[in-house]
Every structure is written in structure tokens, then in C-alpha cells.
């Protein structure tokens, strides 16, 4: 089945619940099969099926709750991060503490979590992400930038706790 394992992983990250993720994936395949005629050969199949999954999530109860309060995307100039050689993030990463990165990802608002996962885990291009999330390329870039910054702040907080 196309992208089965990756769709399931993405669904788990969106829902935070394995049962809900299974329902979401099942519904996605059912919708994909039903609407396969709407898929235009030559276009990006992966972006198409991820878009179905994501839209299905947004209309679910969990999706509606998760997106009821979301940070705004500002399209203004991004703040340039200073060049710091040793940051809490770099110390944590050097320790290879994957669990802390997972926790920081979990705590991100869903709109930041999904854009980071599509870019880093699914290795999608900005164009593909733009299709899946139905947002302009400029918003993909600013949202990614904010997501990365937010993840860094999350890691920094974990580091201060430790």
C-alpha cells in the first residue's frame, strides 16, 4: 500500500493516539480509493494522499481541538539567530538524547509539528509541503522557521529543567 508506514507514523504524530491514527489511515485509504479518479496522473501522488490524510484529521474531533488555538503565521522578516557555538540544543544533540527531541516535538503546536515532520522526516520539498498544507510557499518557509525556533526553545527548556 502506498506510503502505508509513513502515513501511519505521521497520523500518530498528529493524533497522539494509536487507535485514532489507525482510524485516520483507514479513512484516508478509503477516501483515496473512492476519489482515485480525481488524482491526475503525472502529479505528485504522495502530496495528494498526505493532503487527504491531513484534511481528514482537520475535520476530526481531535483535529478541530488541536487547531482551535494555533499561533499566527507572521510573514514579516525573520529574526536572524546569533551564531552561538555551544547552545543547549547542541549539547542535547551531542548527548544523542532522542527522547528529549521527541518530547519537544510532541509539545509543539500541531501546525509547527506537521510542517517540521513533512520537511525533516518525509523530506518533502517546499512545493510538496505547500500542496499538502494548502498554503503558499512563503508561508511554508516562515512557518518552518518558526517551528524550528519553537523546537529550539522547547529543547532549551528541557535542558534548563535537567
Amino acid at each position, binding site marked *: *500500500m502506498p506510503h502505508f508506514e509513513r502515513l*501511519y507514523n505521521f497520523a500518530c504524530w498528529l493524533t497522539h493516539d494509536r487507535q485514532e491514527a489507525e482510524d485516520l489511515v483507514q479513512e484516508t485509504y478509503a477516501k483515496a*480509493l473512492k476519489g482515485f479518479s480525481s488524482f491526475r496522473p503525472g502529479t505528485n501522488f504522495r502530496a495528494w494522499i498526505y493532503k487527504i490524510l491531513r484534511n481528514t484529521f482537520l475535520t476530526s474531533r481531535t483535529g478541530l481541538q488541536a487547531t482551535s488555538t494555533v499561533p499566527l503565521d507572521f510573514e514579516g522578516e525573520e529574526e536572524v539567530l546569533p551564531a552561538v557555538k555551544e547552545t543547549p540544543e547542541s549539547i542535547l544533540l551531542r548527548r544523542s538524547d532522542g527522547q528529549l527531541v521527541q518530547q519537544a516535538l510532541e509539545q509543539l503546536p500541531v501546525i509547527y509539528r506537521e510542517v517540521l515532520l513533512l520537511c525533516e522526516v518525509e523530506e518533502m520539498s517546499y512545493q510538496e509541503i505547500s500542496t499538502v498544507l494548502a498554503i503558499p510557499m512563503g508561508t511554508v518557509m516562515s512557518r518552518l522557521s518558526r517551528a524550528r525556533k519553537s523546537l529550539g526553545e522547547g529543547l532549551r527548556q528541557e535542558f534548563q529543567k535537567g
Partner: protein
Amino acid sequence: MVCESWKAKLDTYLDGELPDEEMRSFDAHVRSCQSCSADALARVQMKRAIQVAGRRFVPGAEFRKKIQQSVVRKPQRSFRLGWMFAATAAVVLVVGMLTSAYLGTRPGRDQVFSEIADLHVATLASSSPVDVISTDRHTVKPWFQGKIPFAFNLPELQNSEFSLVGGRMTYLDQTPGAHLIYDVRKHHISVFVFQERSLPTRLDDHSLSPRKLPFNMQTWSQGGLRYFVIGDASASDIDSLAKLFKAAS
């Protein structure tokens, strides 16, 4: 101050999303700017950490079976409609097999190449890149005895432009290996040697550049060992060093 304008685009550069010409200018800048290269390395490490942490959930066998059955067994209202569903399912399954075969090898392969590139960059950024410092292959080769679970030959460099800087032990996916550093016209080239069967993924034997990273690389398998030659030297230099290794093995 000049670096601030580069740093604002560093993530876009590392995502491989800048126009080709800008990517090339960025490559040149990152190579020459210690601050930007250190920042780039930190951000690549963060990208890798997110990638590893993000691949977390695996579907159970029962759920997989359930989905397979639901995809194949759709309600058949008529022979014609049923045939259309079956044909669509078949198309989706074929596309799935092809894409999962492609995606199944691609991330593993890309990840190995990215890790090799990271090892190369991180070593060169270190204040002590090699543990055994010698231009003599007869000094460097024995140094690895008892440190790695295999032996390999180093090429004779007389009449070539290459010079041996030294070597160190390294690890790729918890597999021990040898890391050798060579110089050619002020460029540093890394040669990595691992046992083929210990590597996490099968690799093809051809020249390539790791995705989104500005290096030339060549990899091949010989005598049960997997070799990687990587550096910012020209593709022909990488090829020449690779040929010397192939001839020596």
C-alpha cells in the same frame, strides 16, 4: 555583519531550496566562513535529530492486514463497478509497491551518505582530526590493528598528487571503521572503510554527491569492504584517489 544575511537563508540552503546559483555561492561562503560552517553543522545535526526522533511509530501487523483487506474488498454493487474498484486497487497496489521499493532504499541510502558527509565535516572541524599522524602508509595501516575487525590496504602515493595526513577510528551506525584523511592541492579528502555486511543498508556502486550537501563522493564495494571517498575536491580528484584504493585492494 555580512554573515547575518547568509545566516538568514541558512535553513533554506540546508533544505536544498535556494536557486542553483545561490546554492553555489552559499557553498563557497560556507567553506570559507568558520562561523557559518559551524552554524550549518549544528543545524544539520538538529535536522538529523528530528528525522530520527520523528520516525517513531510503526503499524502493527494486524492493522496492516486490516487495511490490505479493506483496500481489496470494496463492496461490489455491480460487476462493472466492482471491476473498476478492483482495477483501481490494483493500480494503487502497483504504485505502492514501486514507491515503497523506491522509498525503502532511498532514505536508508541517503541517510548513510549524509552521515558520511557529517563525519567528514565534523572531523575537519575538529582541532585534532586524526589520531595517528603520519604520511607513511606503513605507519598508519598497522595503527588500526586490533582497533577494527578487518584489514585493508593503503595505496602507494608516489607519483601522485595526494598525500596521506593520517587516520582515526570512526563509527557508522555503531559499526567500527577506518577514517583516513588525504590532502590534494589544499583540499582535504576523507576515505572511510567499513565492513559491507555491517552497514544498515545496501548501496549501489557509483559516483554521486550526497543530496543537498556540496561534496563529491564515490563509493564501492571490494573484498567485502565498503569504501567511501568524499571531499570538496573535484570529481576527477575523488575518482583518482578511488582508483588508487581499488588498485591497492
